[in-house]
């Protein structure tokens, strides 16, 4: 531990050396929910922003594996140190570049590193951009995807259809964000080369459905109906309007919507379940990404992952990103989808959209 006298001398010298950052960085990384660790972090942050620019890679590295709150503390500190470094032309460009290129570092600090390079050394950032197409960070992939898309547009404007097609196809391989994928899918379709969007995204489209159970007064959301207790695909249960049983449903929607209204018509104050089995080639970390504007719950292999009782405030792709662990072989996914009592035209939807992917948004496809 550094003595107060030494720290005082370091402060007096104006800049804190990298060696003295160990404890303050640890203090920032220690912040937790509900403000825990804020007091220590406040003092630590004041020390870190006095660091020599040479310490930037160390501060970036402190973001590796940090929780999102700690990431923000560190991000703000990096911003201050970097602003001063860039103004004084002292940004350690090579070290920041090396940090960016080392994909063992977490995506968040690598994005910060790229931003620093873009700001301080735009030509370097530009040079590095093509190499980010298959990057573990979806945010970093956006840059080469945008560039390839522009290149395709330019080629098309010059009548070079084959070159445009090649650019768009290459961009699509790297694209993970919906806005870029949608744009590219349209361009590719126009050039006669449609994209298999469900496969690109990894939508799960084949399910067994059972409905309707009741959701009068929105009480169905918390009611444990039989499918939550046991999956028995041959069973018949008493539903809201009579007996109900499981039925096959495969979505033909490009964006994988599982629409309960299709088999059951536009019902209100009802609860439905969707069940599927997903065969994973290996045990692995994954994300279940869900879009839904109804009340919903999701279970993986019998464990409740998340539940949300919000109705008709909007839905979009990847609205909810749920980290999960897939086991090798069969994984059971159960979705509960509740429709409420509202009668406005914008409250008709009783559906969800679910995909399996990794952190980057790259589809995980079923092994069989």
């Amino acid at each position, binding site marked *: 531990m550094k003595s107060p006298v030494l720290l005082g001398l370091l402060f007096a010298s104006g800049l804190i050396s990298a060696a003295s950052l160990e404890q303050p960085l640890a203090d920032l990384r220690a912040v937790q*929910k509900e*403000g825990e660790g804020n007091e220590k972090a406040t003092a630590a*942050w004041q020390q870190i922003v006095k660091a020599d620019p040479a310490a930037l890679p160390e501060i970036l590295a402190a973001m590796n594996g940090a929780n999102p709150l700690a990431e923000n503390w560190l*991000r703000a500190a990096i*911003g201050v140190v970097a602003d001063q470094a860039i103004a004084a032309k002292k940004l350690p460009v090579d070290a920041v570049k090396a940090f960016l290129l080392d994909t063992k570092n977490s995506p968040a600090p690598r994005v910060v590193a790229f931003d620093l390079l873009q700001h301080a050394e735009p030509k370097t950032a530009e040079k590095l951009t093509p190499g980010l197409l298959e990057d573990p960070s979806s945010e970093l992939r956006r840059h080469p995807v945008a560039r390839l898309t522009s290149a395709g547009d330019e080629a098309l404007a010059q009548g070079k259809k084959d070159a445009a097609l090649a650019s768009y196809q290459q961009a699509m391989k790297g694209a993970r964000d919906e806005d870029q994928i949608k744009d590219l899918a349209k361009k590719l379709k126009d050039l006669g080369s449609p994209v298999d969007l469900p496969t690109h995204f990894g939508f799960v489209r084949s399910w067994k459905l059972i409905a309707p159970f009741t959701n009068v007064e929105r009480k169905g959301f918390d009611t444990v109906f039989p499918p939550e207790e046991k999956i028995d695909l041959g069973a018949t249960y008493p539903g809201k309007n009579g007996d109900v049983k499981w039925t096959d449903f495969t979505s033909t929607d490009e964006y994988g919507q599982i629409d309960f209204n299709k088999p059951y018509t536009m019902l209100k104050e009802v609860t439905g379940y969707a069940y599927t089995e997903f065969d994973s080639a290996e045990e692995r970390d994954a994300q279940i990404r869900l879009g839904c504007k109804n009340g919903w719950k999701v279970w993986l292999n019998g464990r409740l992952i998340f539940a949300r009782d919000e*109705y008709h*405030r909007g839905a979009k792709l990847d*609205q*909810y990103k749920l980290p999960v662990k897939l086991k090798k072989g069969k994984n059971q996914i159960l979705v509960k989808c509740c429709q409420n009592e509202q009668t406005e035209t914008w409250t008709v939807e009783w559906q969800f959209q679910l995909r399996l992917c990794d952190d980057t948004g790259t589809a995980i496809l079923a092994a069989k």
Partner: protein
Amino acid sequence: MKLPLTLLTLAALCGTSAAADWLQFRGPNASAVSTEAQAPGPKVAIDWKAELPGRGLSSPVVVGDKVFVTCSSGPDQSNLHVFCFSATDGKKVWERVMKATGRTMSHNKTSVAAPTPCSDGERIFAIYSSNDLFAFDLAGNLLWLRGLTFDYANASNSLGMSSSPVVVDGTLVVQAENDSESIAVGIDTATGKNRWKKERPKAANWTSAVVYKGAVALQSSKGLTGVNPRSGAVEWDYTDGAATIPSSAVTQDAIYVPSNGVTALVPEKGAVSQLWRASGLKPGTGSPLVLGDSIYVLNGAGVLVKAALSNGDEAWKLRLKGPFSGSPVAAGKYIYIVSERGDFQVVDTTAKEGEVVHSVELKDTLLCTPAISNGAVYVRSDKALWKLK
């Protein structure tokens, strides 16, 4: 102890200076009325314009010579910016960029930088629709942060959230009210930790609190609840329903809540008396304001209605150039309002039927509520911040 005259003079001067600050959504006491002597007057023009890199409809706040404004950028608006500009010339003093830890989804019309930051004069508390909350000192040092949706995973609204916080007695009161995990939190301004957290009605709510006689009045679809800022204890409760978009107007003597039209209330400990109810006064998105002996309500059709503060009786109606998302604010005898299409309008409230006496075309989409400070008015869009003087 007696203070030397010079110190007393200094204190008086500081008092004057503080009165010129615009520290939160709708300014002093969230009343929307400037308390400073130096009003902007009618003939304001663009003094400076500063570019912004992201979206937002939060109001600027002004502390001394510093103007603070938030915005959000990136494909999913997850980059959360806090800017500090010099009020004198619009030059950037500092900028901090953070990352959303909560959900950033919102209706296209609104954005992640919807709630207005607030200040206690020493710190800036910037909050976003993602429920990320950052406390900075005026020099831009990060003092603490919170991720309220990171803490409380279902505290979010897929349409976006917009309730602006208030700071009272060392406590920042934040509403994160929605259909699912609906909460209000009292946060210690020194540490960023909860003093209290309470469940709120499970319903989407975009209103902002006002402060009345030391109590923080939290509005929701159920009504208006006065809570003690230090403990969160309920001091009074009005339960006859209220709007979930326009917020209340407040004076020293009463609260005028958008409830069954507008309802004038006098809350006291344990009880709320109703002075009057004017069902014909129907605020649109903007919140009403009280100026002198009148209350002004901007309805959904863009008509500004003046009514008597004593009984809610209408005096005149004035059609403005709308539509409007922001609320009107006032200084002296003038009301300032900017339309969604960028028509900044100055209304002379003393004209017989009210009169738009000046307008400035800002040629942009503006959804914000203006801020007033040191004789100037500040507005912002998704692209820029303006000072009009």
